[in-house]
Every structure is written in C-alpha cells, then in structure tokens.
C-alpha cells in the first residue's frame, strides 16, 4: 500500500472536514455560574504556591550551609586537635581523682 498517499489522503480528509462551531444551549450561563460559585481564594492553592516558591531558597540555603560547614570545619580544627579536646574533656574527672589520691 502507498503509505505516503494514505497519509496525504487522511490529512486532506481532516482538512476538508473542519469540526462544527456549534455551542450547547446557554453555555455562557454555565461559565458565569461556575465563576460565581468559585471561592474568592483557594487556600490550598495559595499554600501550594508558597511552598513551591520557598523550595528554591531552602535548597540554596541548605547548599550554602553545607559548603560553609565543610570548608570552615577543615580550616578551624584538625581531627587531631578535636580528638585531644575530646580526650581531655572525658578524662577531666579522673585528673581530679588522681590529684586527691
């Protein structure tokens, strides 16, 4: 079968038969009724919009804080210093005991 001709013929068929412009009776009244019954403000839609708008700043803040803590952490204290601090804090009561004995 000649598919190119079939395609051309089918598109020509669609072109030759435009859809009707008929409108259901009093359709505009239905639209106006829908507009009248619609709430002035949809709270959930508003909440949804606010959440989406807040998403990007939250992600940016999260990334900034992560980067800051990562880089600041390596500069301020090395793992050795932190370990020594921890050890002296944990052993502080025993130092006191040692002095009294």
């Amino acid at each position, binding site marked *: 079968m000649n598919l190119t001709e*079939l*395609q051309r013929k089918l598109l020509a068929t669609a072109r030759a038969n435009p859809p009707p412009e008929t409108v259901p009776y009093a359709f505009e009244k239905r639209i106006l009724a829908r507009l009248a019954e619609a709430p002035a403000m949809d709270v959930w839609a508003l909440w949804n919009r606010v959440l989406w708008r807040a998403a990007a700043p939250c992600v940016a803040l999260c990334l900034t804080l992560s980067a800051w803590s990562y880089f600041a952490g390596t500069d301020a204290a090395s793992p050795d210093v932190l370990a020594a601090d921890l050890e002296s804090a944990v052993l502080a009561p025993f130092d006191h005991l040692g002095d009294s004995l």
Partner: protein
Amino acid sequence: MEDAGQNEGSTGTQRVKGSAAAREREGLPASGAPSAMAEGATGERPDGELIAGVLAGDTASFEPLVRKYQPRVFATARRYARRESEVEDIVQEVFLKAFRKLSGYRGDAPFEHWLMRLTVRTCYDFLRSHQRNREFTFTDLSEAETHWLDRFAVSPAEVSETEAAARELVAHVLEKLSPAARLVLTLLEIEDRPVKEIAALTGWSPTLVKVRAFRARAEMRKCLERLTREKKL
C-alpha cells in the same frame, strides 16, 4: 507548556494599555474613554470595554466575551477531543483560565489571539493528561473504515475524502499519536497555519516546531505502517 497568561505579563496596570493601534483594534479608543465609533456595527460593546469592565469587578461583562468567542473555542477543542463532554470540559477550562488571567492580557494583540493561545495550550494539556487513556487499537476499526482502507489499497484515487469512514479513520489515527505530534500535525497540516504562528500559539521556538513536525509525520507514517500490517493490507 508555559501558560499563556504568564507570558502576557501580570501587572494590572499594563492591562489594555498597549499601543494605540492595538487599543483601537480591540475597540478601545486610544484616549481612554469608549466612543460610539469604537463599538461594533452590531451595537455590541467592544472587547476592550468588556475586558475593562471585568477587571473593574463586573463579572457580567465576561458573558458577552464568552458568547462571542465560544464557537471558535468549541471548534478548536473538537479537534483534540471526541467526546462532547470532554470538549465542554476543555472549553469551560479555557474560559475559567481566561477569567483568572485576564489581568495578564496587555492589549497589544487582539483578545482573540490571546484566547486562542490559551485554548491551544489547554488542549495540549488535555492531550497530555489523557495520553494513557488511548485504549483504541486498530483491530477495533469499524467495518466501514476497514472497507474504506480496502478500497484505498485497490485504487487510492477513487476513494473519497469526504466519507464518514475516512473521517473516523483519521480521527483514530490521530488519537494514536503522541500529544506533541498530534498538536503540531493539526496546526500545521490540517489547519494550515504557518510555523511562526504555531510557535506563538504553542510557546515553542520555530525550530522546535519544525523538528516536532518532522517527527510527527514520521510517527504518523509508522502508525499507518502498523495499521496496514495489522489489517494485512
């Protein structure tokens, strides 16, 4: 797809304050107050005045706008939806959106263009949301459609393009296409719109329209290949 209302800008002060030419085209005089000359020959209120009324809080001014443009919106929606209930849902969605986004209409183009852009984008959204519901298979073709195809296989020149069977067949083939392919084929091949206009209607770039048109033709051809294979033609 981007929203037509968003593209039009959203500041209330911009509304219906485009160029003087656009205002006159809309029936709104350049100086501001509506004049008798701006009214249509039928005595109907011009679009600009109705839009200004709606924006001022007079919802009833929206009714003449709906009455005036609903035939075109219905015809466009019927290109993409077959069931009348779906068509009515699309048209209702278009007008509700138009009402909500009316403040974004700047008035630098006729209101009809703005509304048609909204219509096409709503139809595209409809196609995308219903693309999984396309349950029709080519084995479900009616006898009349199969007979039309048989006659086409024997003598392509003799089958008529105006037959109901041909109309049904093309509707079924278009239903099998992806939303983007269906939209671009409808606008380009069936409605004979230029690429630039399709780009404006859809929000796609002209290059994207051309690429999608090329793919759409290939998709339709593949669809027809499957059809003829299933029907053993």
